[in-house]
């Protein structure tokens, strides 16, 4: 049982003519919260989809728990996915099922447990995220934060070995944000799993991460634990981590000099 759960080597991926990943390599440890951060549009969601086998890289390998994801047969891939939980940005709850039914869905599909056991498990999972009282609601009746929590309960239904979070904190009010942040951290330590958080909410994400990778232009720019990233020597990393308005990523979109534009 190696220390590293997800091993990505020399990943190349393009969408149309745009090159999204250009020789990306990273290691994600088996236990702990690992953050993958970067500016919008760097393909962080795409990376999660590649790890989950939904997208195929043009080049390079992705290994999860020693298995090369893209060389698996469909059946083997489905078996692997049962051990992965994924929390989508929008929650992705099935809209025609109640919260309870949504969380029960993976249990009903993949296990042969009887109804009583399923009910116990579902209620326990919902309790872990604080939504046991909302079990009967339909997804359309939930607020954004609540539907993410419900989706989280669903993601842990099968007790996976890793959970991937796609921008979990984006657009949340302070209380929901606080709830989600503490949930990610507590679940990770309680279940002793690997949590991969893809985000660009730097303060929140770094506050719970054990390790972080920063991606830009299709490669890993810097990796390290939160403290070392905050004190990084790299200008680029400093601009990103501290949210500085002008730096390696310029404030002004490339244009003629101002005087020329006004009087030229």
């Amino acid at each position, binding site marked *: 049982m190696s220390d590293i759960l997800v091993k990505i080597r020399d990943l190349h991926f393009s969408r149309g003519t745009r090159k999204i990943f250009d020789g990306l390599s990273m290691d994600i440890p088996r236990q702990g919260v690992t953050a993958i951060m970067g500016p919008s549009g760097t393909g962080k969601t795409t990376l999660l*989809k590649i790890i989950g086998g*939904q997208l195929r890289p043009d080049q390079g390998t992705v290994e999860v728990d020693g298995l090369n994801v893209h060389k698996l047969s469909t059946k083997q891939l489905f078996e692997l996915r049962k051990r992965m939980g994924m929390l*989508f940005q929008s929650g*992705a709850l099935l809209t025609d099922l109640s919260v309870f039914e949504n969380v029960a869905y993976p249990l009903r599909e*993949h296990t042969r447990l009887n109804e009583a056991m399923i009910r116990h498990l579902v209620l326990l999972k919902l309790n872990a995220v604080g939504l046991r009282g909302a079990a009967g609601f339909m997804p359309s009746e939930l607020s954004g934060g609540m539907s993410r929590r419900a989706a989280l309960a669903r993601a842990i239904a099968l007790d996976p070995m890793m959970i991937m979070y796609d921008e979990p904190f984006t657009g949340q009010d302070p209380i929901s944000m606080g709830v989600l942040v503490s949930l990610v951290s507590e679940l990770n330590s309680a279940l002793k799993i690997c949590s991969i958080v893809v985000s660009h909410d730097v303060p929140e994400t770094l506050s719970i991460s054990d390790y972080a990778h920063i991606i830009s232009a299709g490669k890993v720019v810097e990796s390290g634990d939160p403290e070392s990233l905050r004190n990084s020597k790299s200008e680029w990393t400093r601009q990103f981590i501290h949210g500085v308005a002008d730096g390696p990523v310029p404030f002004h979109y490339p244009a003629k000099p101002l005087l020329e534009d006004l009087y030229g």
Partner: protein
Amino acid sequence: MFSRLINKIQHLGVVTIAVFQRLGSASVFLLEVVASCPGVFVKPSLLIKQLYSVGVQTLIIIVVAGLFVGMVMALQSYYALVDFGAEDSVGVMVALSLLRELGPVVTALLFAGRAGSALTAEIGLMKATEQLSGMEMMAVNPMQRVVAPRFLAGVFSMPLLATIFSAVGVLGAYLVAVELLGLDSGAFWSQPQDKVDLYLDLYNGIIKSVVFGVVVAWIAVFEGYDCIPTSEGLGQATTRTVVHSSLAILFLDFVLTALMFAK
């Protein structure tokens, strides 16, 4: 001026290739859907639910439309035949028109507009809200759970609906011909009994409606699955479903009629 012409031709070429490419990906999609169909019968409740939303909910439109179409046919046939003293043949005319053509075709057009667009919208919305992705990541095959049941429901519902349409149409025609216009009810029923053939007319009509069902269901689920996952993309997809289905129905109707009813 010449270069503009070249550009137009080039554009036409690009569009044509894009059409073929889309047709190809749609065909591959159809094969995947058909391959997932046997899996649906493992969990028939999905199919039943779709039969309800696709079939039962289209029933009202079909019954009302069938009634009015039958009534209009009776009126028009009467006006056409009464000059020849052949008004007793109204029953035959209506029955043949409904069973051979109007039943399958009008039902299919209404079905494409109501149920087809609804299927596209449902699947497209599930794609846009990442529910399909979510299912994949939960190791559930969205083809089997979402697409195939809807496809099968469309294929099964069409012949059922077309039969009901024709039957209601004949009844509507009866109401108009016998009650309203005063034709002899015996003649109304007995002439078709001679002229309308069980195999040639009734069965062929059903075969037509099955073919239409496959085509409409195919287009509807494909457009939904393939749509651009934004609200505009969804709107475009549902429009495409209705337009393409309607054109395909009319074209296939011609082909099938030529094959089936040629002497």
